[in-house]
């Protein structure tokens, strides 16, 4: 059975590691130590389990998408409903875990970055719950795209700091959060929202999301008496995907398929497909696949979905990719929008744009997969994307003359 664990220095094969300014090295060692202690502490696990169940709403349903499956005439498709969690996406799993850890470490202040705003909202939520001071860094462009989530964060008591550098998206928000952390490391915990960054973050974030795959595995065995043939999850940094994949890594017959953002073309700068368009490099604390130019400058990215619009993929995905244990493909903006419409019509579920990328790949493959079982991780709900759906579906908008 294949092992996918970082070694003692946080490497997944050649990927991962700890590439940060010296100021952060000792604090990362301290965080790793605190995390290992907490994860072995039954009291910590019981408290987290209680919050996941009674506050966040776990376990989430595994829903048989009968109408979608029938309309495609092939694979039987299940949806793992992470979108039904409190705050509307899987992000809350990790936020509850890290907030409990921050409290345990005596940190009073939390900083976070956010792309689509889901991690920002989940961070603001747990800070409200635990009485922690919360600052969220968000690219100015993403604040425009995700106005509703900005408002939700503020309503929850968080300070949202617009980031105006570079592409004004997730990459720049992470850089700015890291600058804050370098400065305030004594008082502050950096609640990183994806399976990215320096060790122990990729390990810790994955562990907090591992419950997604564990529940799915147990439930599908109960319902179908066998494991799925293919599992689909969108990959930005890759937290929902690694949380879903991890329980299945040893099940070699289960195909693990990660879907990156194809944006609007395969030209550098117009997508976020790190595996097809990038190469190994170091960014934001880790070694992994990154979109960069020939001089090692990190490239700009584009996706209609802010949560997938990032130049680097988490290091464990890079390792799984090189080991051929999981495969990565990409879905473009328009195909993701179409998949969201299909899911809305067939199942009455409006997915987050990120998750719509995973749905799209399942829709592509299902017709040729009669008799197979698919699981799609529906990582988030689409409420936050209403403005973008409106922009892209003008024929449905009554303020638009076409409708009348």
């Amino acid at each position, binding site marked *: 059975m294949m092992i996918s664990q970082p070694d003692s*220095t946080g490497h997944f094969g050649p990927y991962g*590691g*700890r*590439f*940060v*300014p*010296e*100021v*952060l*090295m*000792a*604090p990362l*060692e301290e965080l790793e130590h605190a995390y290992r202690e907490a994860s072995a502490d039954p009291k910590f696990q019981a408290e987290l389990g209680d919050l996941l169940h009674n506050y966040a709403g776990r376990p989430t349903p595994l829903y048989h998408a009968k109408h979608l499956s029938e309309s495609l005439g092939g694979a039987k498709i299940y949806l793992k409903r992470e979108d039904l969690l409190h705050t509307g996406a899987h992000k809350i799993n990790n936020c509850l875990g890290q907030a409990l850890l921050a409290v345990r470490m005596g940190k009073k202040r939390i900083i976070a970055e956010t792309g689509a705003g889901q991690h920002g909202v989940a961070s603001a939520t747990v800070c409200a719950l635990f009485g922690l001071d919360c600052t969220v860094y968000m690219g100015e462009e993403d604040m425009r795209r995700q106005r509703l989530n900005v408002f939700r964060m503020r309503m929850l008591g968080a300070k949202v700091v617009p980031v105006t*550098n*570079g592409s004004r998206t997730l*990459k*720049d928000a992470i*850089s700015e959060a*890291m*600058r804050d952390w*370098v*400065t*305030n*490391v*004594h008082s502050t915990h950096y609640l990183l929202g994806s399976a990215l960054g320096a060790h122990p973050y990729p390990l810790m974030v994955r562990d907090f999301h591992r419950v997604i795959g564990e529940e799915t595995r147990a439930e599908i065995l109960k319902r179908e008496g066998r494991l799925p043939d293919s599992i689909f999850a969108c990959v930005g940094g890759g937290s929902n995907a690694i949380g879903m994949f991890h329980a299945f890594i040893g099940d070699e017959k289960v195909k693990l398929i990660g879907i990156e953002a194809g944006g609007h073309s395969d030209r550098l700068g117009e997508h976020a497909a790190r595996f097809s368009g990038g190469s190994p*490099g*170091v*960014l*934001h*604390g880790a070694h992994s696949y*990154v979109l*960069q130019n*020939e*001089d*090692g*400058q*990190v490239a700009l990215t584009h996706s209609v979905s802010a949560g997938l619009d990032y130049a680097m993929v988490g290091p464990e995905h890079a390792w799984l990719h090189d080991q051929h244990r999981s495969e990565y493909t990409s879905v473009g903006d328009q195909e993701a929008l179409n998949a969201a419409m299909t899911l809305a019509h067939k199942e009455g579920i409006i997915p987050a744009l990120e998750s719509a990328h995973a749905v799209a790949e399942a829709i592509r493959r299902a017709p040729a997969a009669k008799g197979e079982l698919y699981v799609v991780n529906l990582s988030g709900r689409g409420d936050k994307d209403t403005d973008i759906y409106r922009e892209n579906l003008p024929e449905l908008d009554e303020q638009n003359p076409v409708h009348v």
Partner: protein
Amino acid sequence: MSRIQSTFNGRKALIAYITAGDPTPEKTPEFVAALERGGVDLIELGVPFSDPIADGPVIQRGADRALKAGTTVKKVLEIAKKIREKSQIPLLLFTYLNPILRYGLDALARDAKAAGIDGCLLTDLSVEEASPYVAAMRKAGLDTVFLAAPTSTPERLKLVGEYSTGFVYLVSRTGVTGERAELSNSVAPLVNSMRAETKLPLAVGFGISTPEQAHDVAQLADGIVVGSAFVRIIEQGGDLEGFARSLRKGIDG
């Protein structure tokens, strides 16, 4: 003893950081000449990177200007060659790991040496990850300077001392690069702890921008590094030589 280390003999070293190629590659050799006339002993030649997480707004803007002007690693090495036509001032490449990885560690070490570079400092490369890099640099005869910080544990300071050649760069406080009104009180304890681990010269940087601060730090350390204040002067088209001279006076006075 390397050209970098020997610059600390005799007097307290004034070290200036500027971003190569800011605002254009043509300007950098002129700036280096002005700094040298003003009494600077060593130049940290910044290679601009798109995502400089350890830098404050002034140096970020400098990197943006340099990148817009087409500055690449290759171009920075050409700038170094140009500087070497007229000056023997020690040159330390100062950047982030990714542009160097992309160039190739061995190729970089070889080409940097040929261009007259004396050593290298990578802000986001910790000693734990540094073995391949240190091997490549040693082979080419280049110094490797590492950072020590107020948060570094005694075990880490020991490793930083072991991996460094030329000098050790002490970060005066937690935070990004940038000018500060007050000096951090973590400087003296850090200098003392590092002295216990190494005989190498110790330079202190981050937040030093006035002759008075330079004077105070020079009482403790063997060298002081000024970065953002110089980059700001470049941004405003000010007098690099005059400012360097005032810092020199502060150190020597």
